[in-house]
C-alpha cells in the first residue's frame, strides 16, 4: 500500500472521507443536537477539540498501550478530554451547554473519535495523527453546520438567531423535531449520492468517448 502524504492525511477527512457524509459515523449527535446552527457549531467544536487531544495522546503513547486493553485506554483518554470540554462549555456558553445536555458526555462514545484512534492514531506518528484529527474534526463541523443551517433556516426561519424571512414566517415545526433530523440527513446523503453518481457516469462516458476516438 502506498503511504499517504501529510497533505492527504489532512484533507481526506474534510470531504472525500467525511466522517458523517461519507462514512456515516457519529449519527447520534448529528441527528440529535443539530436543530440550530449554534448548537451544531458548539457540538462540532467540542468534538473537534476532543478528537484532536485524544489523537495526539493516543499516537504519543501508542508504544506503551497493551494491545489487549487498547480500547479501554482510548476511552480513558477520550473521557478525560470530554470532561475538560464539558467544563469549558459550562463556563463559556452555559445556555448551549444546557441545550446539549447529555450529548456532551456522549462524545465519549462518538464512533468518529474512537474510529480515528483505532484506524489511524494507533499506527501513525504524532504529527500525522494530529493532521488526520484536524481533517476529520473539520469534516464533522462541516456536516454539523450543513444539518444545523438547513434545520434552523426551515424550522425557525432564522440563521444564528437572525430572522431571514420577516415576522410572519410560518415555521416548519417538524424540522426542529427528531423526524426533521432524519429527513435532513436523508436529503443531504441523497443529494450527495446523486451528484456522485452523475459525476461517475459522466467520467465513464467521457472515457469511452476517448477510447472510440
Amino acid at each position: 500500500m502506498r503511504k499517504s502524504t501529510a497533505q492527504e492525511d489532512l484533507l481526506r477527512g474534510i470531504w472525500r472521507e467525511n466522517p458523517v457524509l461519507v462514512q456515516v459515523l457519529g449519527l447520534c449527535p448529528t441527528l440529535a443536537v443539530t436543530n440550530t446552527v449554534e448548537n451544531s457549531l458548539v457540538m462540532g467544536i467540542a468534538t473537534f477539540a476532543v478528537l484532536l487531544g485524544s489523537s495526539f495522546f493516543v499516537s504519543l503513547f501508542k508504544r506503551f498501550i497493551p494491545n489487549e486493553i487498547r480500547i479501554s485506554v482510548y476511552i480513558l483518554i477520550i473521557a478525560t478530554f470530554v470532561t475538560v470540554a464539558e467544563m469549558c462549555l459550562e463556563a463559556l456558553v452555559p445556555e448551549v451547554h444546557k441545550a446539549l445536555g447529555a450529548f456532551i458526555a456522549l462524545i465519549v462514545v462518538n464512533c468518529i473519535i474512537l474510529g480515528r484512534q483505532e484506524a489511524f492514531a494507533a499506527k501513525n506518528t504524532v504529527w500525522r495523527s494530529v493532521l488526520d484529527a484536524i481533517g476529520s474534526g473539520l469534516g464533522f463541523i462541516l456536516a454539523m453546520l450543513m444539518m444545523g443551517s438547513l434545520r434552523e433556516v426551515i424550522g425557525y426561519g432564522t440563521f444564528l438567531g437572525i430572522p431571514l424571512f420577516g415576522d410572519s414566517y410560518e415555521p416548519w415545526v417538524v424540522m426542529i423535531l427528531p423526524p426533521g433530523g432524519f429527513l435532513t440527513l436523508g436529503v443531504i446523503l441523497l443529494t450527495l449520492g446523486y451528484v456522485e453518481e452523475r459525476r461517475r457516469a459522466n467520467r465513464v462516458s467521457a472515457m469511452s468517448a476517448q477510447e472510440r476516438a
Partner: protein
Amino acid sequence: MTPTPHSQPIQVMAAPHFKGPDSTPQIMWSVVASLCPVIAASIYFFGPSALLVILASCAGAIVTEWAFVRSGPRTLFDGSGMITGVLLGLTLPPGFPLWMAFVGGAFGIGFGKMIFGGLGQNIFNPALLGRAFLQAAFPVAITTWSASGEAWAGSWWHLRGDNFALPLMSPHVVDTLTGATPLGFMKFEHTATSNLDLLLGSVNGSIGETSGLVILVSGAYLAWKNFLNWRIPASIFLSVAGIASVLHAIDAARYPSPIFMLFSGGLMLGAVFMATDMVTSPVTNRGCWIFGIGIGFLVVSIRIWGGLSEGVMYAILLMNALVPFINRITQPRVFGTSVKVRSL
C-alpha cells in the same frame, strides 16, 4: 456472440397466463372518477376553498412526479399521482393555505413514493405520509377548522380561511369563523353531534371526510368493480363498531356511540380510499381481515385513550408498516406440501 436487441425483456411468468382487461391507468383513473362525487360534496359544503385546496395538493403531487419520472418509467399519466393529490386534499381543512397543500403533495409523492422506487414500491400510503408531514410541520394550520353548515356566517362563495397566504408565510386566522370538529367536541367538551348531520356531512372537518354517505356509495362502486378489497373497509367498520359498542355499553357517558365513531372524522374516507390502496395493503384475504381489524383497534385506541382527537391517519400508517409481515404469516400453503413444513 452479440446479444440480440430486445425492445422488451422476455417475460417469464408462472401459469395460468390470463390477461385481464384492467390496466394500471384504467384502475387508477376509475378511482379518480369515483372520488368525483366526494369532491363534489366537499365543494357543496365548503365552497371554492375545497376545490382550491384539492387542486393545490394535486399540483404538488403531479409536479414532483414529473420531476422524478423525467428519467425512468413513465408513470406521470397513469393517474396514481392524481389519486395521491386528491386524497391528500380531501384530508386537509378547507381554510388551509394553498402553498402548504402544495408542499404536502410534493412530500407525499417525493418521500412517500418516488424515493422507494415509484409506483408499486412504496411502503406507506403517499397521501397519508404527506398529511403526516403537514401535521408535524404546521400543527396549528392543519387543526384550524372553519365553521360549516348553519354556523358559517359568510356566503357559499366566501373562502373558508386564508387560502391565499403567501408562500412560507403564516395564514391569518379569523377566530369567529372557526370551530371544533365533532371528534374535538366529543374529546374536549363531551358533547355529541347529531347522527344525521354526521351522515350527510354538514359538520366541521377536513374537506372530504364530512359526508359518510357519499363516500360509502363511491366505495361500493369500487368494491363492485373489484378495484378495492371489500374485506378491508368491512373489517375496519366491524372492529370499530364492535369495540365502540362494548365501551359504549360499559359507560355511555364517557364513550361515544358506535354510529358516532363510524361516521365522525376521517374514518370513512380512510377506510374506503386509503387503507385499500392496492400497493400498501396485504395481498391475501385473510391478511386484509387482520389489517382492517388492526386499523379499527388502533383508531378506537387513539381516539379514546390518545392525546389526539383523530387517529385514522396514524392507524393506517402503522398498519401499512406491518403489511409485509402480515403477507408473510398469511401466505397460503403451497399445494402438495404438508401442513407441518410450512416455512415462516
